[in-house]
């Protein structure tokens, strides 16, 4: 029996594996300099909503760079703990927990998907950490899933739908249809919109839900056209939204039915081009806000990234501004003190006057409705603000997701 000689490919395998094993660095404790303020950002940098995560990342990085150039907060430097969750709730919880336990971080922001937020929020008390949402729209985070350590700086999905419905009260559309992605956010938003239309005595003809990952929307476009509605509320995101809009454009649906949406960001018109022209939507942050703080912010952003700030980028900036106000008010970053301070924070920033509501930690802020149109200087349709509604009209009652009037 010949002596078994190590096959060369085996040597190669062992080198590759020891190399990769080298990555399994022991859990070295990160050096703690003069106690910087750590802000944890477990973002979905990859996966289906990777583009949203990248936006939130840019928002955090620019804010921290600007803030540190102005001496940080309470004289302490701010440090961003960035991790990629791939949009998976299990990874989000694990990464956040690691930031709490390894880096002693007690402030989170930028968690990208609502499903990730809903998985992290119940853990905040155990971790004794605060989470300021800049992107999660799910109404339940400030309703039945509310926890004291959670704050929402961004406009919620119900508030977005509310702004659109307030706009529609004075608009000339008669019959409304709705289409949403068949999961929690899609269903909740369409429900809010439906109750709003009925409250406004408009004719709501029906709704349909498409499974996630639908590629051919011809059936749904046919249903919308057959419904006889003259306006259709669309609650979609990511690939599905792009596919729906480009196919609706090819069917010339927008010529017959005004498309309405509860939230929009610039990635959509960039992806579908002219098919987005004429779309009316509520927008959480629009670079067209004409107040001095926003103009300064847009200039700073364009210098840094060469484009105008998008919807989520503006929201992330505002969330961190609110955090800064809370920290300065509490004179510390300790959880209890910061929470109490944040509950009464009010700022005048890129979106005008914004105040945190004590009872459910929702940032009450103006709601704006935009319409996408061609504009010189942009090779894709950009939003024009066509209506603004004050915060108290768009915010739902405390810990509620629906509206009475």
């Amino acid at each position, binding site marked *: 029996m010949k002596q078994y000689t190590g096959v060369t490919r085996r040597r190669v395998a062992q080198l590759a594996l020891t190399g990769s094993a080298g990555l399994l660095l022991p859990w070295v404790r990160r050096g703690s300099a003069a106690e910087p303020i750590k802000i944890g950002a477990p973002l979905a940098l*990859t996966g*289906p909503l*990777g*583009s949203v*995560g*990248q936006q939130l990342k840019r928002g955090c990085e620019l804010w921290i760079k600007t803030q540190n150039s102005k001496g940080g907060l309470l004289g302490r430097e701010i440090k961003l703990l960035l991790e990629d969750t791939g949009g998976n709730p299990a990874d989000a919880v694990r990464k956040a927990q690691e930031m709490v336990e390894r880096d002693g971080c007690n402030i989170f922001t930028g968690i990208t998907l609502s499903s990730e937020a809903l998985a992290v929020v119940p853990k905040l008390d155990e971790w004794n950490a605060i989470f300021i949402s800049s992107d999660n729209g799910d109404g339940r985070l400030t309703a039945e899933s509310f926890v004291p350590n959670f704050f929402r700086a961004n406009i919620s999905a119900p508030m977005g739908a509310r702004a659109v419905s307030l706009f529609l009260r004075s608009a000339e559309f008669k019959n409304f249809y709705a289409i949403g992605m*068949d999961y929690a956010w899609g269903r909740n938003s369409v429900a809010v919109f439906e109750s709003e239309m009925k409250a406004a005595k408009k004719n709501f003809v029906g709704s*349909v*839900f*498409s*499974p996630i*990952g*639908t*590629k*051919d929307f*011809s*059936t*749904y476009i*046919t*249903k919308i*056209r*057959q419904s006889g509605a003259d306006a259709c509320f669309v609650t979609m995101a*990511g*690939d599905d939204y*792009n*596919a729906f809009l*480009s*196919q609706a454009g*090819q*069917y*010339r649906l927008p010529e017959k039915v005004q498309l309405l949406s509860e939230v929009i960001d610039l*990635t959509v018109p*960039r*992806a*579908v*081009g002219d098919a987005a022209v004429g779309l009316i939507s509520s927008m959480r942050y629009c670079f067209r806000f004409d107040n001095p703080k926003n103009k300064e912010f847009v200039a700073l952003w364009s210098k840094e990234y060469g484009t105008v700030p998008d919807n989520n980028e503006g929201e992330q900036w505002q969330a961190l501004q609110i955090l800064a106000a809370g920290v300065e008010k509490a004179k510390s970053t300790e959880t209890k003190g910061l929470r109490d301070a944040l509950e009464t924070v009010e700022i005048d920033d890129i979106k005008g006057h914004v105040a945190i509501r004590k009872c459910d930690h929702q940032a009450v802020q103006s709601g704006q409705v935009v319409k996408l149109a061609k504009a010189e200087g942009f090779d894709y349709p950009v939003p024009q603000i066509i209506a603004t509604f004050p915060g108290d009209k768009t915010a739902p009652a405390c810990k509620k997701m629906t509206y009475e009037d």
Partner: protein
Amino acid sequence: MPLYAFLVVQSVNALSQAALLFFLGVGLTLIFGIMRIVNFAHGAFYMLGAFIGYSAVRLTGSFWLALALAPLAVGVVGALFEFGILRRLYRRDESAFLMVTFGLALVMTELIRLGWGPEALQVAPPPVFSGIVMLMDEPFPTYRLFLAGAGIVVALAIWQFLERTRLGLLIRATSQNAEMVHALGTDVNLVRSTVFGIGCGLAGVGGVFAAPLVTASIGMSATMIIDAFVIVIIGGMGSFPGSLLGAVLVAFVQVFGEYYLPDLALALMYLIMLAVLVFRPGGLLGKEA
């Protein structure tokens, strides 16, 4: 819209959707039929076709050039992968291919994300087919008619290629008995690389055609790979007419299923697949396993 008009419109829709699914399925079934390889990266080649199509349209300004170049490029990438990696695994059992193509899918998705960025990219349909035509007095995009037509043309082309040409004959022979073909002096490895290249190229064609409908996006490969497997399983692993039948069946069930049974839409495909696998494990037109 009267019922018969609705049925006609939806049938044409289903045909255009079947064309996309066919491009994906035929490539996969060609690869499995000839080389017994379950190509888990097939969705990634489909996505690569869409992204290369996007870049080609931007560079050359013409959808048609992109339609010619992208599949070629994807086919070359596929052939190189077969030559470099799969060739070493032929003496291993089938799970080795499954694993290595699963790894490739991860690698390709990341490379595309690094190359083209995380955002979805727009690919406009060719000008001549970006209008509408009145079908049953309802506007109907001409691009979908073109897609349905293209599907039929490509199906015929592949059928003729396999039946009439020497390479087609070689491919069919290799699928039946690779050793014998090798014994007859043909370089089977070359045939295998070509087949793998053609299979991936076909997926690339699917990608280029799909981009105007769904935009070129990172999420494409994950969803499409499951559809591809469903089609090939229903039609019969390795059976060319099977992939055609599978594509048409799945498309019609999806289009009409979503309309009449919206709640079941997500599960419909898998119920069919289960039914077929239980009663005819080899697939409707497949060789009995």
